[in-house]
C-alpha cells in the first residue's frame, strides 16, 4: 500500500496524477448534474409564479397594487440593458477560455477579470432597481414572486462571481489550468453560463411576458 498508486476523486486543480482516461471530467459531470438540480429549484419558483399568475390573478397581470391603486410596473428598458451586460459576460468568459486553448494565460486572466466586472455591474444595477421599485416582497403575490425569483437569481450571480474569483486567484497565484486540463475552470464557466441562461429566461417570462 503506497501512496503513489492511490488516487481518489477528482482533482480540481489539474495538477494531481492523471486518472484513468475518461470522456468527461468528474468536475464537469458533477456540475452538469448540479445545474439540473438548480434548474429544478428555479422551476419550483417559476411554478409558484405561474400558478399565482394564471390560477389566481386570472391574467390581470401585473395586478393592481392596493397601496398605490395602480398596477405594478417593472423597468423593462433598464433591465434590458442590464441583461445585455450579463449576456456579454458569457462571451468574455468564453473568450478567455478560448485563449487558454492557445496557451495564452494572460488572456484567460483578463477574460476572467472582465467577466467578473460585468457580473458586478449587473448586480449593482439590479440592486439599484430593488431600491427604486416602490414595492416590496410583501406587496401582494406579485411582489413575492418577483423578489424571490430575481433574488434567487441574484444569489446565483453572487455564487458564480465567487467561483470566477477563485478561478482568477488560482490562475494568477498558482498558475493553474492547462489547455487540456482545467476542471475547476470548466465547471465554473458552466455555472456562469447557466446563470446567464436562467436570467434571459427570467427576463422574458417575468419582465416581458
Amino acid at each position: 500500500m503506497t501512496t503513489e498508486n492511490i488516487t481518489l476523486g477528482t482533482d480540481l486543480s489539474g495538477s494531481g496524477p492523471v486518472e484513468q482516461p475518461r470522456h468527461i471530467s468528474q468536475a464537469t459531470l458533477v456540475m452538469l448534474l448540479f445545474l439540473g438540480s438548480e434548474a429544478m429549484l428555479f422551476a419550483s419558483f417559476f411554478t409558484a409564479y405561474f400558478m399565482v399568475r394564471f390560477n389566481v390573478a386570472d391574467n390581470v397581470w401585473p395586478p393592481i397594487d392596493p397601496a398605490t391603486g395602480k398596477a405594478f410596473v417593472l423597468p423593462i428598458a433598464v433591465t434590458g440593458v442590464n441583461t445585455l451586460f450579463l449576456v456579454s459576460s458569457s462571451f468574455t468568459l468564453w473568450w478567455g477560455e478560448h485563449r487558454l486553448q492557445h496557451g495564452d494565460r494572460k488572456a484567460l486572466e483578463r477574460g476572467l477579470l472582465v467577466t467578473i466586472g460585468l457580473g458586478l455591474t449587473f448586480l449593482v444595477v439590479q440592486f439599484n432597481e430593488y431600491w427604486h421599485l416602490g414595492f416590496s416582497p410583501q406587496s401582494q403575490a406579485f411582489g413575492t414572486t418577483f423578489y424571490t425569483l430575481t433574488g434567487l437569481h441574484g444569489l446565483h450571480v453572487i455564487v458564480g462571481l465567487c467561483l470566477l474569483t477563485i478561478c482568477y486567484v488560482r490562475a494568477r497565484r498558482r498558475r493553474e489550468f492547462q489547455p487540456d486540463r482545467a476542471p475547476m475552470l470548466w465547471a465554473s464557466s458552466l455555472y456562469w453560463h447557466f446563470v446567464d441562461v436562467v436570467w434571459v429566461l427570467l427576463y422574458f417570462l417575468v419582465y416581458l411576458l
Partner: protein
Amino acid sequence: MATHAPTHAPSGPGHDTGHHAPPPLSHWWKRAFVWVVSSIFAALGVTWFVRWAWGFSPLWNYEVYMTVIFAFMGIAFLIGIGCFDYWWDYLRGRKVSYEDHSMHGATSWKDYLRPNTDHKVIGIQYLVLTFMAFVVAGLYAEGVRAQLAQPGENFVNGQTYNGLFSMHATVMIFGFVIPVFSGLANYVLPLMIGAKDMAFPRLNALSFWLLVVAAVLLISAPAFGAFSAGWTAYPTLALQGSTGTTMFELAVQFAGASTIATALNFMVTIVTMRAPGMTVWRMPLLVWANATTSALVVFGTPFIAGSQFMNLFDRVMGTNFFNSANGGDVLMYQHVFWFYSHPAVYIMMLPGFGIVSEVIATFSRKPIFGYRAIAFSTVAIAILGFGVWAHHMFVSGMAAWIRIPMMMMTVLIAVPTGIKIFSWLGTMWGGKIHLKTPMLFAMGFIVTFTIGGLSGIYLGALPSDIAMHSTYFVVAHIHYVFFGGSVMTIFAGTYYWFPKMTGRMYNEKLGVWHFWLTFIGMNLTFFPMHWLGTQGMPRRVSDYAPRFANVNLFISIASLIMVAGTIVFFYNMIWSWAKGPKAPWNPWRGRTLEWLVSSPPSLFNFDVTPQVVGGPYQYGIPGARHAVVFAGPELGGGELTETDKRLVLVVADEAVASASLIEDIRRRSAEGYWRFTYVVPSNPDEHRAAERRLHAALAVLAENGVEANGTVIDAPPMQAIDSVMREDTVHEIILTTYPLGSSDWLDQDLVDRVRKAAGVGLTHLTVLPGEAHAAAASVAVEKVALIANYGIDDAGLTDLVKSRADAKPLSAIVLCPLSLDVPSGSPEAEDLRNEASGRTAILIARLQDAGIQTRGEVLDGSVAAAVKIARTAHRADIALLATRPGDQVEITDEITEAAGTMTVEQVTTDGHTSTAPGASEGR
C-alpha cells in the same frame, strides 16, 4: 492473518509520507463550539443591521431573529467542525495537496466523531445517526399509540398529539428512511463497483455533517414549541404555530442539501469510477437502484426545498405565496410539495429494491431472474413517478381534469413494480433458499410490500380515494409501504452487510427472533387500520368514535410487539459489534466485489484495481466469475483470497477418527471458510491412546487437504473446551459422542451444557462404537494385519503394535487362523474356537484401549488363508505374522502367493521383530 489490513489497523509506514496526522478530537469540537457561539452574535448583529438599514420597524422580531440564528448556527457548526477547511485553503489560493488523505480512515472510535473522508467511516456514521433517529421517531409513534389506545383525551391534549405524529413522521422520513439508505450505499456502493472511495470524499463528509445539523434541528424542535402541521407541512397550518415549525423548515433545507450532495456524489462515482470490465449490464442491481434514486433526488429535492422556502418566507417575512387575500395560491403548495414527495416515496423505496435484489439472489443461489427487467423497471418507476403527484390531491379542489390522467399514470406505476415482484419470485423459484435473517426480511418484504402496493391501487383509483382520503386506510397504506417496504429492506441490508462493515457476525438466532416479532407485530398493528379507514376513522385526529375503541386498543398493544423486536435488534447489533465472532470475508458466498475483500475492507478497499469479468449473479453456473481482486505488490500481486478461515472446534473422545466425523469435516472444509481444531478430553492414563487416535484422524484429514490440528487435554470436556475457546475465536462446535446409553458424555448432559456455555452453534454427531473402531479408509493410515494364534495375548505383541503406531498412524486387523485337526462341527472344535476368540479379544481390547482402531476375527484355515483374507477382505498394507519366541512359521510359497503385493513380516510375541530367514519383503 488476513492479507488485507482492516480499516481499523494503523496504515503502513509508506502511508504517512507527506501526511500530517489530524489534530485530536477536542480540536474540532472546541472550534465548532466557538463558531456556533459566535454565530449567534453574528446572526443578531447582521439581522439587526439589515433591519435597521432597510428601515424595518419594529427592529425586534423574535421569529426573524430565531430563523437567522438557527441558519447561522448550522453553517457555523459545519465550518467549525472542519468541513470546509480544504476548500477554504483552495479558494485563498493556498497550495493544497489533493492527495491529502489525513482525514481518511479510522483507527479508533474518535475518528468517527470528526469529519472523515473515508466512505466506510461515513457509511457507519450515517447508520449510527439514522438508527438513533429511528429510535426517537419510534418513541414518538408509541406516544401516538398511547393516546389512541382509548377514545378521549387520555394521554396528551390535541395540540400535543399533533406534535407527536408530526415529529414521528418527519424524523422517520427525513432522519431515518432517506438517509439510512445513503449510509448503506455509502459503505457498499464504492466497494461494489471496485472503487477506492467516492468521487468526492470531502463533499461526502460534508453531506453527513449537514445531516447532523438537520437531525439536531429536527429533534430539538419540540423544545421551541412543537411543530404540528404533519410531515406534509401544508400551509396555512404550517404558517401558524411556534418556532419549532421554523426549525422544521430549516432542517428540511439542511437535509435536502445533504441528500442532493450525496446523490451527485453517487452519480459521478457510478459513472466515472467503475472498475475495468464493469459495463452497465454488469453492475449489481443495488448500483442501478442507487443511480436511479440519485437522479430522483437531484431533480426532485429542489422542489421540497422550494416549497419549504416559500413556507418559511410566508411565515417569517410576511410574503404572500399562500395568502389568498393578497393574491397568493394556497393549493400551489401541494403541487410543489407533491411534485417532490411522490418521487420521494420512490427515493425511499428504490434503494430497498436494490438491497432485496442482492439478498434474494445470494440466498437463493441462483442467477437473478430478469436482471434487465429489474434494471429497466427501476428507471421506468423513476420516470413515471414524476407524473403522478396529484393523486395526493384528488379531493383538494384542484382543477378536475388533472384527476383522470393522474389516476391512469398512478395505476400504470404498478406495472414496473409488479415486474420486480415477479422477478424476485422467479429468482427464488427452484433456488436453494438459505433462510438466513437477511433473506427472511427480504421475503417478508415481498409479502408486506405487495399488500401496500395493492392498497395503493385503491387509493390511486379516484372513486375509492374520494371515500378513503385522509382516513386510516391511508395510514395503513403508508405503513405497509414504509415499514413493510423500506424498513424491512433496511433491516435486510443491515444484517446482510453487518459482517462486512463490522468484521463480526451477528447472532443468527436473535436475528430470526427480530424478524418474526417485527413481521407479526407489524401486520397485527397495521392490518386492522385498513378496516378502520374504510369505516371512516380519520387520520391525524387525537380522538375517535367509541365504536373504534376495541380495534385501537388491539393495535396499540400489538405495536408493543414491534418494540420488543426492535429491542432484540439493537441488543443483537450492539452485542455482536462488540463481542460477536469474527466474520470471514464472505460469509454468504456472495459474488459481488465487496465480498472479495476482507471484512472490514482495508483502508483504500483495493490495493490494485480489480478486474470485472462477468455478471454479478452467476450463482450455480460452473466456472462463472464476477470479478478478480489482486493483491498489492508486497504480497506478490497474485489474486487476493481469504487466508483467514474460521475455526470449528471438534470435540470427540473415542470417535475421533470415525468415518462419519471425518466425512462431515471434509464436507465443511470443501466450503473453503473453515479450519478445524480437535480437542480430545482425556486423563493421564489414556493420554497416549487418545493421542494415537488423534494422529490417525489428523493424518486422514491432512491427506484430504483439510486444515486441521488438535490437542489432547487431560481435563473433563467442559474444561478442555473452555481452555481452547479462551485462546481462539471458535465459530462452531462439533461434538461427537456414542449414542444414548453407551455414552458417558450424554449421561452427563454434555451437549446441552456445552451449548449453553459456549454460545456458538453446536452440531451433535452420534457415532456407533463399531464405526469408531473401524479402520479408516485412507492411505495415510497404515492398515496392519496381525496374524497370530498362540501368544496372541502376549503383552509384547501389544507393545510392538503401539510403538509402530507411535511412529506412523495405523489401524489394526487381528486375525487368528485355526488349523483344526478335529472335525469342525465337533465340541472340541468349538472349545478351541472359544479359547482362540478369548485370546483374540484380549489383544483387540488392549489395542483399542491404546487408541488404535482395531477389529478382528477368528477364522478356520491356514496362515496362508489368513494372509489372503487380510489382503483381499481388509485391504491391509502389511501382514505381521506373530509367533512366540523360538517358534518359526515357515514362509511357504503358499503364503507368498496369498500375500501378493502386500508386505509380510515376521514378528515375535515378545515384542521383537524376528529376523527369521525367508521373511518376505513383498515383491
